[in-house]
């Protein structure tokens, strides 16, 4: 194959996979055009599912597969793709990085389209540096930490990182801005602007109509921008220096059959190959090629004017440089990998106390297993139609940072919805059928009243909004009539709401709809959640 063709093959593949990734990301939501035949829809309408394989990119990711495998010792269905990627790496090198990875493609685009470096500075930036060891340190800590039961891969895994960033920061950020903008047009007194506001239908297929909010969304967004900005310091900074998946594939690609052959006799030391190198893999003659750093972009092959570089499956006999992990980097990673799970457990919420504010999605596995499986990718958060599932900030402690937790002031768990479990790539949230969810019932917590704030209980007047919205039948919130003392000391007869803990599933619609703003008068805590044997109230 001619080098030019190979480059275009790579670009096409990158474009196709990036588009596919974005398409699947946008489609990770309640389907836009669901029509159920009402004559056949029984009960609560049945299970509504996303038709597209939205977990595909996670299943391609060997780091996600490996960490879930070693931390929770479970074989999760669907990860054949990840194994295939590992095999491909053994044969061809880091082709995943060069041809498939959507995050890599984004970096490639940023570095290529808006390159800040030229000439000598670019040459310097594209030489191998010791900082490339960092990714091996990160990989070591992730793997060791997984071995001890805490899966932290999701913080740095490129697929999780890019999904979380785009789904929880970029799309909601742009979407809220657009929704605001169209609201402004619609409220205008000028007819022309009013009419313009109907163009909202052009953007809603991507952004939806609602205002989305994710706690720590700002931090996720800033981190994303910073990581993209790093490409100005060195092209594909993330891939070379930080990516733990890149490190894993780098180790495997050392055994790659596809080798770079340099013809030192032809080389004129023009440095063009180094300038074009994406991975700082030292393609120039006179230096030992580093297959572990090579992102298989084939730029060097393409740019070399002398034809001194080629890729071949034959043994070259040339010296290559093994992955430069560095003893210190590995030891550092080891130390971090051992200490993180230990420190993460110190707040005791796996063994001793259950945090009331940590409300996991319905179908979530017990906390220790959950921390072993959850990739913090944000797929459940993107899919949640009411925006209830949020990345945890402090709710889940250090170990559970950015794992999903339900915030009932943002949304609530829809009684008839089982979407989050159906999309979780690592079964940290298990797929439930609607029948299972309602009839078991799967509880995520329990509600309790703050009688000092509740309108009828505090004598401020009638209100039964929580009872009205309670979705179980019979209702978990019941009313009884009694006299309460009003502000002027007068006696009022009102309906007072109470929670029946045997019925309450903790869905949180009561908290979400409670008219007492600021801090609702009825709130949900995790006590009573089905997944925990300890965190229970009733006998």
């Amino acid at each position: 194959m001619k080098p030019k063709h190979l480059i275009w093959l790579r670009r096409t593949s990158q474009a196709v996979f990036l588009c596919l990734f974005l398409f699947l990301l946008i489609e990770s939501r309640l389907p836009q055009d669901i029509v159920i035949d009402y004559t056949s829809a029984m009960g609560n309408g049945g299970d509504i599912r996303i038709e597209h394989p939205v977990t595909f990119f996670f299943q391609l990711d060997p780091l996600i597969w490996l960490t879930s495998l070693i931390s929770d010792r479970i074989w999760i269905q669907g990860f054949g793709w990840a194994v295939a990627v590992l095999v491909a790496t053994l044969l061809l090198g880091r082709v995943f990085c060069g041809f498939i990875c959507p995050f890599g493609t984004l970096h490639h685009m940023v570095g290529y389209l808006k390159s800040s470096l030229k000439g000598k500075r670019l040459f310097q930036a594209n030489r191998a540096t010791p900082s490339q060891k960092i990714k091996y340190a990160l990989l070591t800590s992730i793997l060791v930490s997984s071995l001890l039961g805490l899966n932290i891969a999701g913080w740095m895994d490129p697929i999780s990182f890019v999904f979380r960033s785009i789904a929880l920061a970029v799309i909601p950020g742009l979407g809220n801005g657009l929704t605001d903008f169209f609201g402004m047009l619609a409220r205008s007194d000028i007819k022309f602007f009013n009419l313009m506001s109907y163009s909202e239908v052009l953007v809603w297929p991507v952004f939806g109509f609602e205002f989305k909010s994710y706690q720590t969304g700002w931090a996720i967004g800033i981190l994303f921008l910073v990581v993209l900005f790093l490409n100005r310091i060195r092209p594909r900074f993330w891939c070379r220096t930080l990516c733990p998946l890149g490190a894993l594939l780098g180790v495997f690609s050392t055994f790659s059959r596809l080798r770079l052959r340099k013809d030192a006799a032809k080389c004129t030391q023009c440095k063009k190959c180094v300038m074009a190198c994406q991975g700082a893999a030292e393609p120039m003659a006179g230096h030992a090629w580093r297959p572990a750093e090579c992102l298989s972009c084939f730029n060097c092959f393409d740019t070399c004017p002398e034809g001194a570089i080629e890729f071949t499956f034959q043994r070259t006999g040339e010296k290559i440089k093994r992955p430069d992990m560095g003893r210190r980097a590995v030891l550092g990673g080891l130390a971090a990998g051992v200490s993180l799970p230990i420190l993460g457990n110190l707040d005791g919420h796996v063994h001793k106390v259950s945090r009331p504010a940590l409300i996991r999605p319905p179908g979530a596995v017990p906390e220790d297993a959950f921390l072993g499986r959850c990739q913090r990718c944000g797929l459940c958060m993107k899919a949640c139609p009411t925006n209830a599932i949020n990345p945890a900030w402090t709710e889940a402690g250090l170990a559970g940072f950015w794992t999903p937790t339900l915030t009932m002031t943002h949304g609530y768990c829809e009684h008839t919805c089982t979407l989050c479990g159906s999309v979780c790539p690592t079964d940290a949230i298990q797929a439930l059928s609607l029948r299972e969810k309602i009839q078991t019932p799967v509880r995520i917590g329990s509600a309790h009243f703050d009688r000092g704030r509740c309108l009828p209980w505090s004598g401020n007047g009638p209100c039964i909004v929580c009872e009205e919205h309670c979705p179980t039948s019979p209702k978990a919130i019941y009313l009884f009539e009694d006299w309460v003392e009003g502000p002027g000391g007068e006696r009022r007869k009102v309906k007072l709401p109470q929670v029946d803990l045997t019925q309450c599933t903790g869905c949180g619609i009561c908290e979400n709809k409670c008219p007492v703003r600021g801090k609702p008068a009825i709130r949900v805590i995790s006590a009573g959640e089905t997944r925990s044997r300890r965190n229970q109230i009733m006998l």
Partner: protein
Amino acid sequence: MDNFITRRESIKKLLRLSTGLALSSCAAVNFQTPRPAVADDAESAFIVDAKGQTSGYDIKTLTRSAFEAAGGMHRFIAKGDVVAIKPNISWARAPELAATTHPEVLKAVIELCQEAGAKTINIVDHTIHGARRCFAVTGAGSVAKETGANLIFPRSSLMRDMRLQGQRLDIWPVFTPVVEADKLINLPVAKVHGLSELTLGMKNWIGAVGGRRYALHQDIHQTIVDLAQFFKPTITLIDATRVMVKNGPSGGSLSDVTVMNRLILSNDPVAADARAAGLFGYSPNDIGFIRLARKWQIGLYDTDISQQHEVLI
């Protein structure tokens, strides 16, 4: 290279352009006022009580005969009308759970409107559960697809502050497609409610407003009446084909539902509610908002109306 526009210049140009546009379009300012109500007086008021008695009767036929008894849909809908239909599809519950208007009723009404020559039919409801799920599960989505009616997705850009001029509610955000129509048809479902005792026609207007609508419960009867004097439907058709008799208004179990096979059609919103209250064994005076609505002269009780029709199929 000099003739490139700098960022600053392009922003300036854009600003100049848009200001020009804004100024020129000022000429076309059109202050929209909510359409005056289609009020009815005591003589023209009618009520139709349609009962399906034979087993396996057809809801569609029942709906059609109810309108025939009232003189046909063309009496209410003129050719070229934009019709807003306000069903109760606020809960993501399947039709047989009786939390929402039956899709067959909705479909029959849309078809009647189309036969009467309506230009556009909008199905409007500001739902409680997620709108997309509600549309799917209640069957409204499927009806809209079959009939070609527009299902309007409730969203912030369609909520606008309006003067309701009620006793308790003055300025409140209203879901604009409900009022931006030539004719408005109220299509509620009859069910029980924890605070107002019943959810009927007038209470259905809570689904036509936005804002802090869960605060309305603090004076539920007066606020329902305030809404009812603002939203004046051409006709109200109460779906009582099956009614939720307990665990209202959300229900969730078939044991909460009783089959009644009734439809109540009236051009007087109070009369329709008063008759429907009877289905639950209430006298209209037992229900605060019906009593208040008559007091504020929004309509009459069903017993005060001269044109009474009964349809049996």
